[in-house]
């Protein structure tokens, strides 16, 4: 009789274990498309055997715990790659906007430069012609306009990036608040030796989102995970999160502060790092190149003007301004308004074109960069294109490795519908078998009762 009772008890445990296993499989299937979800498995264990005389009998099965299948090394690699991808993607997006300003070589500063010197050159066929002198002023005006519009559009891109900085900081603050709250829920469970399962999944997912924005160091402590920026500024310690703040600097660009310290230049990873790199390095360097071109051209052309005489026989005056300083391209202007102001003459007589040689020589005269104006511009186009090409290549390469890492992680932690379906069938069969055991024990017990009743 005790054998039958034991069998009944074991079969009941079996039923319960298969039910729990079914529940886990169902949950896996339900979460097959949940971002950050790690597949769970039910840890089944034999219960301790009992001895009857010299024999040891098994006593059935029990569910020990539900375990999430994860690979922390892979997750760390994914965080790191996500951070690189965010950085490259942000740079690539911003730089593609910048390079669009330089993508048509038949328009813009480069072609204006050539058109301007060509108009000066044309004057050599008829130095007193007012229409031809006027066309020099028009070409100079076009050049100034394109300097202005290029700088204005670069400025707009920079300001949009500045908005992105504020938005990214807000997102970082939201994420760190959520992570700190999850730490508060996870730590007590871990201290009890329980798996925090889905809570950990959620935290990993949030950390990955945070990595998209900036580089994050993750340190495991008994109070949960401590998070810091790439250079060690604390973001989350236990249940406490530290918000980043922004404040504009002298030039109106938002700088980022952690507990009062300006950490802008130390933020290099993620979208935020990429945005900052373009906002604070690529764009200022481009603007400074444009300034050098504008002011150098102005200085050299003004000097050439002064070597000659205008149509009225007066010494040539400054033609362009300003001749130095930051912001020269944005404020580049043509000082000459009268066609007669072009100092074509070398001897003061109206018909002389002797000084045109000097004016034209500016075309081949090196600027502070050591390059002629057009070579300088051509280099600038190369730099803009090269930066953008590098960022695009990085974005695409990190995207590919991120894809591969995610595939790897999926193969560890992801839910396979096929596998879960197969498991369902397995658990269903086991459940049916256990139920059959109960029905058999029931029938045997009935038989026993019948014997006792009739006997």
């Amino acid at each position: 009789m005790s054998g039958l009772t034991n069998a009944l008890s074991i079969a009941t445990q079996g039923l319960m274990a298969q039910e729990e296993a079914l529940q886990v499989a169902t949950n896996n299937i339900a979460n097959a498309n949940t971002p950050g979800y790690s597949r769970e498995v039910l840890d089944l264990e034999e219960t301790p055997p009992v001895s009857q005389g010299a024999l040891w009998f098994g006593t059935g099965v029990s569910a020990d715990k539900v375990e999430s299948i994860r690979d922390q090394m892979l997750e760390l690699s994914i965080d790191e790659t996500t951070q690189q991808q965010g950085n490259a993607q942000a740079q690539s997006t911003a730089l593609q906007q910048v390079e669009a300003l330089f993508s048509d070589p038949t328009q813009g500063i480069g072609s204006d430069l050539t058109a301007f010197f060509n108009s000066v050159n044309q004057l050599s066929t008829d130095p007193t012609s007012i229409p031809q002198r006027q066309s020099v002023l028009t070409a100079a005006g076009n050049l100034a306009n394109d300097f202005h519009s290029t700088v204005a559009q670069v400025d707009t891109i920079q300001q949009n990036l500045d908005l992105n900085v504020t938005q990214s900081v807000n997102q970082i603050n939201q994420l760190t608040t959520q992570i700190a709250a999850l730490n508060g829920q996870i730590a007590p469970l871990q201290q009890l030796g329980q798996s925090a399962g889905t809570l950990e999944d959620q935290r990993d997912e949030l950390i990955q989102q945070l990595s998209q924005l900036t580089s994050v160091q993750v340190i495991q402590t008994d109070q949960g995970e401590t998070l810091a920026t790439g250079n060690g500024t604390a973001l989350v310690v236990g249940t406490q999160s530290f918000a980043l703040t922004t404040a504009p600097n002298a030039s109106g660009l938002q700088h980022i502060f952690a507990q009062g310290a300006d950490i802008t230049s130390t933020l290099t990873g993620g979208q935020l790092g990429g945005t900052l790199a373009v906002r604070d390095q690529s764009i200022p360097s481009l603007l400074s190149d444009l300034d050098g071109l504008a002011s150098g051209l102005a200085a050299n052309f003004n000097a050439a003007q002064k070597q000659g005489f205008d149509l009225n026989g007066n010494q040539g005056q400054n033609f362009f301004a300003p001749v130095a300083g930051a912001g020269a391209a944005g404020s580049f202007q043509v000082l000459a308004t009268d066609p007669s102001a072009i100092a074509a003459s070398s001897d003061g007589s109206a018909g002389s074109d002797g000084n045109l040689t000097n004016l034209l020589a500016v075309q081949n005269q090196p600027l502070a960069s050591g390059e002629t104006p057009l070579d300088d511009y051509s280099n600038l186009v190369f730099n803009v294109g090269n930066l953008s090409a590098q960022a695009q290549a990085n974005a695409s390469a990190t995207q590919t490795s991120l894809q591969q890492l995610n595939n790897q992680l999926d193969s560890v932690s992801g839910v396979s519908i096929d596998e879960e379906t197969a498991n369902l069938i397995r658990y269903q069969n086991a459940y049916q078998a256990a139920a059959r055991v109960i029905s058999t024990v029931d029938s045997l017990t009935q038989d026993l009762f019948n014997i006792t009743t009739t006997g």
Partner: protein
Amino acid sequence: MHVTNMMGTVLSAIWQAENNEQTALEQLSSGKRVNRPSDDPTAAAEDVLNLSQQAQVDQYTQNTSGLNGLFQTADSALASVIDSLNQAVSLGTQGATGTLSTSDRQALAASIQGVLSQVVQLANTSYQGSYIFGGTAVTSAPFSSGANGVTYNGTDGVNQATIADGMSIQTNVPGSQLFMQPGSDVIGSLEQLVTAVQSGDPTATANATTVLSNALSYLSSQRVFYGNTMSQLNDEQTTLGQESTDLKSEENTLVGVDMAQAATEVTQAQTDDQAVLAAAARVLPMTLLNYLAPGS
């Protein structure tokens, strides 16, 4: 590998295929391989220089055609002056015979005077509003006749025009050098001839005629400058035309695309895209569930 979800792989394959298709279409429709600096930074930078050179060559070509008109005007003015001077030399030869009556001499002198004013008028020729024999003083007539004879109000300046990289040509000869060169003074010798004929001195008239004849050959030699320069301009125009063609073909090599190849690439990219989509449509819906009988 334990493949759990192919969606990501399939999606990135679709994006890649669509990207390739878009790039191929862009190249075909723009006819350019480099549509933005990042497509090929080096080529984009060189394209800036190439286009500048093309624009410069166009400007040089425009300069040479503009100068052609100027030189033709100057050359034909000088040709007329030479005709007039030949006429004056034969008039002078008539005056030197010594058998003329006073009234005939006066008529002869008047004719030579007429040649003189014609020459002065030709020396004041202008082209597009600028006097072409006034040196660099082009806004007022360089030669004027007064009580003391003809005076030159121009300058000795010469202008240069650039017609190719590092190549400039002189665009004028000052009137003083052409018509009043000491020793070969065209206008002075005409004035001298008028005086000699009027005076009725056959020897002086013969001498003056010789001087004028020398001045005439001097002017003819000066005229060669214009002829030479015009043929130089013509040569240069041919060279510039060739240079322009070369630069365009260089530009095409730098940033252009082979149309036949681009069209093939578009077709290839479309085929690839369709293949990826077709494969995705077959693979994605497949799970074990498709093979299990309902209710089993």
